[in-house]
């Protein structure tokens, strides 16, 4: 869907004609319900949930479809502080107060309540997990409480408690990571990852904070902390408004390491992740800066550009207004499509790539314009690397890569530069088959020895427990579209979401808890954040860090994902073959490029298709570089095969040496029949005969030999050949061939004697 959408904007310009690398696509998903009191996002199940007084409406956000119809559930009256479905969608948990959470069986409608035992502690929030030992986790001011819950039993069983004085917490389902803030300044963080492979406690760590004054003690707010999951690694980003830096911490299983920082240009920022690309929205400046932190580089992918709405036009608006009547039947009157205010105050950024306009009940999905990004940089190598890492629009990325490869060759860029570009593509492909991600590649062969180089060292130490089980391709069996090279996932086979495409391959949907961020999260100091007009009915928890999870994000849909990796076959058929004609005048350049390609493929032990060799021979022969061609054959740069031999024979029409190379190759490949046939054709009938006898080729017709001999006008040879067949082929003497050529021989002899 998204691929289509963005391809309608070929030049990378938004509808307004402005340039952008990141956009939101019109139309958005509308979730305005009359009587709605708030909008929640459940990132565990990736649903947008809008409660009214007695029921809740849910919109699935994956796959993102603006016209999806909501489902609804009846719930009891009462305030809703937060709401989450269990991962199997059978249970619905609603936080009614800082002390009570109601759990409702959606089928039977049975409900039961979970209440705090003591008045002193409050429930900051809760989330469902896919851990084998527990199903739901409550985050309380006194620590974590892990419960198991079977839908038939009307109560929860306490499994484990983690005692801790919690000020606020941050959780994303994507990372399965909950960060608990403790201490006066709330900058002392403790993390637990509660996933299907168990519970991992992270070492406690402190966030650095710049001081505005010497003795001030800044307090870290929950909204300044972002858990970010890219490439299967988990990072925590911390906004330091004083230093105007976004500190980047990476979580390892046994350590938390600060890995640089990103500058910010706005006191208010938001963070999204689209297809493993980190987007830092500089809200005040109304621009997005894109980072691809794959290689720990803190350099932006491209220049900051605004976020734009695409696909919105007057006509469009009118149309959708009409159509909108149906969809937004519940919504009421205020469908003012007019101007979508970018970075409006009411925008809530949902993990990882959604934006909810809570004022208007609109959900946007953030898209990357790969085309615009790729055309914005002249660093071909970097762009290709970037594109190769894209999964979401893998096919588009792949097409862009192919187009770029064609372009740089057609533009006759320097060979080393093109070589680096090809290296990137070949290496990425090699990596993708090593990790088993490449599926269409049934015919992809690796040549002989696989060098035992391991995949990627950076990834493996990532926090997830699963990492050991992960990188060998064993898990692949199960998943059809195994995509991300991410670590933690594999573990989660039992993901309870019934979002089919997703559940099956990936354990790592992250449930981000937005609670504390932006408008509706309770501020930890307890000051009631001014309620938005848009959601007046929300009952704001007084407690610090309401922990409510009003909004939830789903991970990107991955069902369509293939890899952007480009196989050697693709490179040949979509890069080398199409440009060959256009490069006719400069075949030596193309040969140079192909040599680089072969070198690259050889280093990765990839087999290349035969037609690249055939093409190479044609190019060299066209330029009459026969000496070089000979060298290429001798050094086996052009690997021997029947096709190659045939091309050598064809190209050797004007060059006898080249023809010989083809003949020799046939012999070395033990294609004796063809070899003998060609020898005869070239007039080497005696040699052919000798060779045929030695290699026991008996498929060549005697008449061919006899014809060739007769043509040479040598009666001795003719006699010898006749004799040969008479001796070695039973009943040859009774064939017409024998009679015919015996007569010829007699004639020749009489002519000689005469």
């Amino acid at each position, binding site marked *: 869907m998204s691929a289509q959408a963005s391809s309608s904007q070929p030049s990378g310009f938004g509808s307004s004609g402005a340039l952008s690398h990141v956009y939101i696509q019109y139309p958005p998903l509308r979730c305005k319900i009359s009587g709605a009191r708030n909008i929640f996002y459940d990132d565990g199940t990736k649903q947008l949930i809008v409660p009214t007084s007695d029921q809740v409406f849910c919109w699935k956000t994956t796959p993102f479809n603006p016209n999806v119809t909501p489902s609804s559930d009846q719930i009891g009256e009462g305030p809703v502080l937060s709401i989450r479905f269990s991962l199997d969608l059978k249970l619905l948990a609603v936080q009614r107060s800082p002390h009570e959470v109601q759990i409702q069986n959606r089928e039977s409608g049975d409900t039961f309540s979970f209440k705090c035992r003591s008045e002193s502690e409050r429930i900051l929030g809760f989330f469902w997990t896919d851990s084998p030992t527990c199903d739901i986790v409550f985050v309380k001011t006194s620590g974590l409480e892990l419960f198991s819950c079977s839908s038939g039993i009307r109560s929860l069983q306490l499994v484990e408690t983690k005692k801790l004085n919690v000020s606020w917490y941050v959780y994303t389902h994507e990372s399965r990571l909950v960060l608990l803030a403790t201490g006066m300044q709330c900058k002392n963080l403790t993390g637990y990852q509660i996933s299907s492979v168990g519970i991992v406690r992270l070492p406690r760590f402190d966030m650095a904070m710049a001081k505005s004054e010497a003795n001030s003690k800044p307090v870290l707010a929950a909204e300044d902390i972002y858990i970010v999951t890219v490439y299967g690694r988990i990072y925590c980003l911390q906004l330091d408004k004083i230093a105007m830096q976004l500190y980047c911490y990476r979580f390892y299983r046994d350590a938390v390491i600060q890995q640089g920082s990103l500058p910010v240009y706005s006191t208010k920022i938001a963070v999204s992740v689209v297809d493993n690309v980190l987007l830092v929205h500089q809200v005040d400046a109304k621009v997005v800066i894109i980072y691809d932190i794959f290689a720990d580089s803190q350099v932006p992918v491209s220049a900051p550009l605004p976020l734009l709405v695409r696909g919105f036009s007057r006509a469009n608006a009118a149309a959708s207004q009409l159509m909108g009547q149906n969809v937004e039947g519940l919504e009421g009157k205020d469908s003012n499509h007019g101007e979508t205010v970018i970075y409006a105050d009411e925008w809530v950024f949902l993990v990882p790539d959604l934006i909810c306009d809570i004022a208007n009940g609109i959900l946007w999905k953030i898209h990357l314009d790969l085309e615009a990004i790729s055309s914005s940089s002249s660093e071909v190598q970097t762009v290709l690397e970037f594109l190769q890492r894209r999964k979401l629009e893998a096919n588009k990325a792949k097409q862009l890569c192919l187009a770029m490869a064609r372009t740089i060759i057609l533009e006759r860029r320097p*060979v080393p530069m093109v*070589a680096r570009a090809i290296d990137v593509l070949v290496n990425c492909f090699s990596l993708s088959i090593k990790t088993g991600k490449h599926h269409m590649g049934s015919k992809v062969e690796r040549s002989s020895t696989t060098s035992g180089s391991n995949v990627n060292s950076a990834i493996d130490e990532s926090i997830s427990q699963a990492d050991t089980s992960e990188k060998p391709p064993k898990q692949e069996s199960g998943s059809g579209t195994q995509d991300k090279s991410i670590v933690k996932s594999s573990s989660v086979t039992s993901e309870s979401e019934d979002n089919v495409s997703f559940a099956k391959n990936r354990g790592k949907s992250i449930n981000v808890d937005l609670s504390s961020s932006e408008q509706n999260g309770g501020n930890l100091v307890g000051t009631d954040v001014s309620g938005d007009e848009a959601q007046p009915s929300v009952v704001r928890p007084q407690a610090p860090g309401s922990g409510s999870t009003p909004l939830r994000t789903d991970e990107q849909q991955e069902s369509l994902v293939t890899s952007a990796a480009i196989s050697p076959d693709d490179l040949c058929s979509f890069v080398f073959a199409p440009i060959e004609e256009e490069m006719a005048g400069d075949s030596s350049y193309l040969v*140079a490029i192909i040599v*680089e390609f072969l*070198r690259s493929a*050889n280093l990765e032990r990839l087999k290349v298709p035969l037609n690249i060799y055939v093409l190479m021979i044609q190019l060299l022969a066209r330029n009459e570089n026969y000496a070089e061609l000979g060298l290429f054959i001798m050094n086996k740069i052009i690997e021997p095969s029947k096709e190659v031999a045939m091309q050598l024979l064809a190209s050797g029409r004007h060059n006898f*040496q080249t023809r010989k190379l083809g003949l020799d190759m046939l012999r070395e490949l033990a294609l004796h029949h063809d070899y003998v046939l060609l020898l005869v054709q070239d007039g*080497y009938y005696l040699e052919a005969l000798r060779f045929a006898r030695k290699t026991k080729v008996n498929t060549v017709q005697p008449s061919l030999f006899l014809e060739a001999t007769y043509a040479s006008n040598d009666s001795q040879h003719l006699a010898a050949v006749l004799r040969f067949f008479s001796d070695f082929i039973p009943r040859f003497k009774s064939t017409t061939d024998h009679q015919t050529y015996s007569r010829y021989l007699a004639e020749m002899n009489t002519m000689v004697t005469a």
Partner: protein
Amino acid sequence: MKLCIFDLRRGQHEGQELDKILYFFPADLPFPTQLSVIGLSEGLITFTRIFSPEAPCEVIEAEMHSHVFYEAERDIWMVMVVEKSESEAIWRTAALRSVLKEVHSLFVMFHGSIRALLDREPSGGLTRTHLYYFIMDYLSDFLSGKKLHLPNFRDSLKERGMVQMLTIGREAALEVQSLVRVLESCAGCKQSYSLIMFQDLLVSTTLSPDDLINLFTYTVMRLTPNALSAGASSWSYLRKGSTTSNASASLSTSSNSVLDRYYNSHDTSPVGVRSYQVVRPLQHEKWSKGKDGFLVTDIWGTEVGSLSPSSPTIWLKQTEERMYLCAFQHKSLTIILLIPVTSVHNGEQGLSVVKQQILENASPKIFKVEEKLSRGWGGENAYHVSGYRYLLVDGDKYISRASPPGKVATLTKDSLVAMSKLREEVDLEKSRAKCDGSDCEKDQEICIRAKNGAWVISRLTRGKELYMVLEKANETLLYASEAVEKFSDRYCSGVFSL
């Protein structure tokens, strides 16, 4: 040994006979003797042309001497006279002719054709001067002690005018090719050529075979690390280890007086020898490796108005274009880049830009290739096959490979003489086939049991030749034949398995 070059179109009038002599060795021989050698040769050429206009006289075998003829250019003949008296004086005509051919092609590579030189300056003074120094420098390579050592029967498992190649694996070959492309891009123009050598062996080239052989020969003679370190022992037949710089001096004493004699004797030209600026590319110990890795020489003089030496240039046969020769050396790797003179602007300045480009862009690849090749390098005996003494010639690709000279030297004189005779036979057979004009390359096999019991074998098949001596071998022909078969299968991918 006598060696002369003469032009049939010159000195056709009585009294002007000296004019036809372009070169004579030894130069201090009296003119009447010189003229008698040339007169005999000319007479025979004229006579045999009646029967065979295209290929007249090839050799005269007299009782005491052999005269080997080579028509280097139309009507310009080279004749070598060797004595048969000594025990070592068992010659193979084709081997001697290949010496003539080699010196001529090298001369043309540096100076252009003799005819062109004569046309440029009809008096012949320029041509004589160039030939004199060139051939003297060339012959000095054959000096051992005070004697010229021409290829005789001891060299019967060697082939002049061929290229020896390093065998490399596919991966190394791809790295090399990658380097070749970078070099080409450094040269900045399409018509540039490259030659990459490891030790004295060719690794890769983009040159056509004719030019390749000349440049390869020159590189091995003067440019490779072995050639640069004078006096180092050499295992290539192209270079004698004992050559020293005074060797050529011993050949060319009183050169000026020698050359002046032609003019003093008949006052045709007022131009003295000393007025010619002579470039002597074959002079010894003139090349050295500069700090930046490029090889430098002052052979081509110094540039006007500067102290830096002029860059060497050579003529390419195929394109008939004058090229700058730019040589770079890293350890055992020698890289030669040929760039058309016309495509380099500002001469030396333009070249230094190219050199800079090479240092900047190609160095990493050069280091990588050198490392890779060194790792796979089996040493000078890499291509020795125990039990065999062989010579393998691929006439299509102009590639030969032979047992290392040290191993060939272990053969007895009888074996070597037999091989020399055998090759003479094969040469004859080949030239006969050529005369017949059939382009069919016949398969041919000869096995001889020499007096000492060694097998001396030749096999020819479709442009490829294999010569082999098997000493201490079993006495049956079957054994010999199987030994060849085994060799062919293992080392020649079955080419000679008939």
